[in-house]
């Protein structure tokens, strides 16, 4: 097999690596946001102790320390578990969470390569199928742990998943009723050309979004629907018996599920990778690549200078004044000042490069990759920002709303959301008929 034949496989491999890296790199960031965000909501300073050479980075280092801790801990296999299912449960939870991401488009094309791992046409159906599989990890963990609390957690997870999947599927049906396709790339493509083209900007679309998003909380087992974990009633629910890296897998799977849920919601309702500004769709970005690079470069400069100013101002905090003269933590404000000033200089340089018109001419040999690279970066940034906001919303809600009681959860799912989703589907069907018959 020559190198030419291997290229398609290498492309698929590269996209797989990218998708996994995308999810796995956001996970530590989310754990940090969860800790610091909850602390700030509750008027606490939050994690701020662990440091690397005096750089504490607002508690980001704690996440790294946590990983080391979880790896070094003893991996306990309780004697009473069904070991086979007990072993594969965290693997299922994690792998299902990661594999859902493969159909989500994170850009249109790069040098003719479709920017999603799998270019399947039934993308939305695949997402619904995989999210349903996600409950197996939790259910198996609860059952195989051979422990009444874990079993209750697993039971709750499965019944909750069944209840909310209906509302979720019916809300997603609203989208593919309007789009006429279940391919996520096509659904995103139809939302190009401005904010008002996003699916969320319509009456049935908005109701569908609210229902879908609420159901996503139940699917990812996040508060207010985190009854499977329910630490007040069930110790830790389905992962009570797990320790060390197996617990970490469940922990990461929860965050990976959040990222996937946010990605799917972004794709269905918020225009996916579209920037939301008219003229800046796939063609527009490539045509204005130089201008975009110059604008982004120069606009970022004041932001970074502001960050540097904040770092400079932090030097006079009472905390730094109380430190001994030779404490290494005195480096921290200086480090961040240097970092942000350096970033400002780098972005000013990027702006100059854009003004000179270099990005659109960037090429490897005869292959001009500049415009495509700019489009990729811009679209990936838009997509990531939307996903990160979605993930932050999960965290924000967790520290705002208390857990539902189990009967309230079931009432909400069956008596409120399901009828509403059905009515909304009916409304959406009428909407589509009106749009196709009279508005076009």
């Amino acid at each position: 097999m020559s190198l030419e034949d291997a290229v398609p496989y290498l492309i698929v491999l590269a996209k797989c690596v990218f998708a996994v890296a995308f999810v796995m790199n956001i996970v530590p960031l989310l754990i940090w946001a969860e800790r610091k965000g909850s602390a700030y909501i509750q008027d606490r300073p939050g994690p701020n102790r662990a440091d690397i050479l005096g750089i504490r980075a607002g508690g980001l280092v704690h996440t790294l320390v946590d990983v080391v801790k979880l790896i070094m801990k003893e991996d306990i296999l309780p004697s009473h578990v069904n070991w086979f299912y007990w072993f594969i449960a965290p693997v299922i939870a994690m792998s299902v969470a990661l594999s859902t991401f493969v159909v989500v488009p994170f850009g249109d094309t790069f040098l003719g390569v479709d920017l999603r791992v799998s270019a399947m046409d039934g993308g939305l159906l695949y997402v619904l199928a995989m999210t349903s599989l996600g409950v197996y990890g939790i259910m198996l963990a609860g059952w195989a742990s051979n422990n009444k609390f874990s079993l209750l957690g697993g039971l709750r997870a499965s019944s909750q998943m069944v209840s909310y999947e209906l509302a979720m599927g019916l809300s997603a049906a609203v989208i593919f009723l309007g789009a006429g396709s279940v391919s996520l790339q096509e659904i995103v493509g139809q939302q190009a050309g401005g904010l008002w083209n996003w699916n969320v900007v319509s009456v049935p679309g908005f109701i569908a979004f609210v229902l879908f998003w609420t159901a996503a909380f139940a699917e990812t087992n996040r508060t207010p629907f985190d009854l499977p974990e329910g630490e007040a009633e069930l110790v830790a629910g389905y992962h009570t018996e797990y320790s060390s890296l197996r617990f970490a897998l469940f922990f990461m799977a929860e965050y990976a599920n959040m990222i996937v849920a946010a990605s799917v919601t972004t794709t269905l309702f918020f225009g996916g990778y579209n920037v939301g500004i008219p003229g800046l769709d796939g063609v527009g970005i490539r045509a204005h690549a130089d201008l975009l690079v110059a604008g982004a470069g120069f606009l970022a400069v004041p932001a970074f200078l502001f960050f540097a100013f904040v770092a400079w101002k932090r030097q006079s905090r009472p905390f730094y004044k109380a430190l001994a003269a030779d404490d290494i933590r005195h480096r921290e404000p200086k480090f961040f000042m240097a970092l942000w000033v350096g970033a400002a200089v780098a972005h000013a340089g990027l702006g100059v490069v854009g003004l000179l018109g270099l990005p659109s001419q960037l090429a490897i040999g005869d292959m001009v990759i500049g415009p495509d690279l700019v489009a990729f970066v811009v679209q990936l940034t838009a997509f990531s920002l939307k996903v990160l906001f979605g993930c932050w919303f999960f965290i924000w809600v967790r520290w705002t709303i208390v857990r539902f009681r189990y009967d309230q959860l079931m009432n909400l799912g069956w008596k409120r959301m399901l009828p509403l989703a059905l009515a909304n589907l009916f409304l959406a069907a009428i909407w589509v008929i009106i749009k196709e018959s009279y508005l076009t």
Partner: protein
Amino acid sequence: MALPVPSRKLNVSESMYLWEVVKGLALTMSHIVKNILDPDHFRTVEYPELRKPMAARYRGAHRLMVRPDGKVKCVACMCCPTVCPAKCITIIAGEDPNDPAEKFPVEFDIDMLRCIYCGFCVEACPKDAIRMDTRIYEINAFTRQDMVHNKSYMVNLMDGAKPRAEGVYRANHAQAPDGYTFDEKPIL
């Protein structure tokens, strides 16, 4: 038989949940914004770098007072071990050959592991020989034996016999206590 829990029927907007959720989110976000803008107003004190100023009446580790000539004020009258509810004070009295009129403590030990910091010893002392005004609360050691504070330790407590303790004192006081001076070099 379960007790009835008083509850109110939700009105229409409350039973929709959504508007209530938005109100809650606005409340939590207002806390986040406030705390990001001003990271120094938390009630949490970043111990050990920053410390809470202790109240004037705070009862910390004991110290023994001395007279201007350098002898301890204590006359070994045994009031404090008598009143001590934890029975943590041990005094061995002796006579000063140069001044046979007065007793003095040959040994004065306080077992800090037993002490309950009630301050009765300070109240009982007729000579103002024992005080708990050091505001030292970091009383720790690696062995049980080291937790027994002896006479010389308690006399020199403010003189830098235990540097960390003096650091605590300096953190809470602008000036050295009567009859003492701080070292030039800051320790904390």
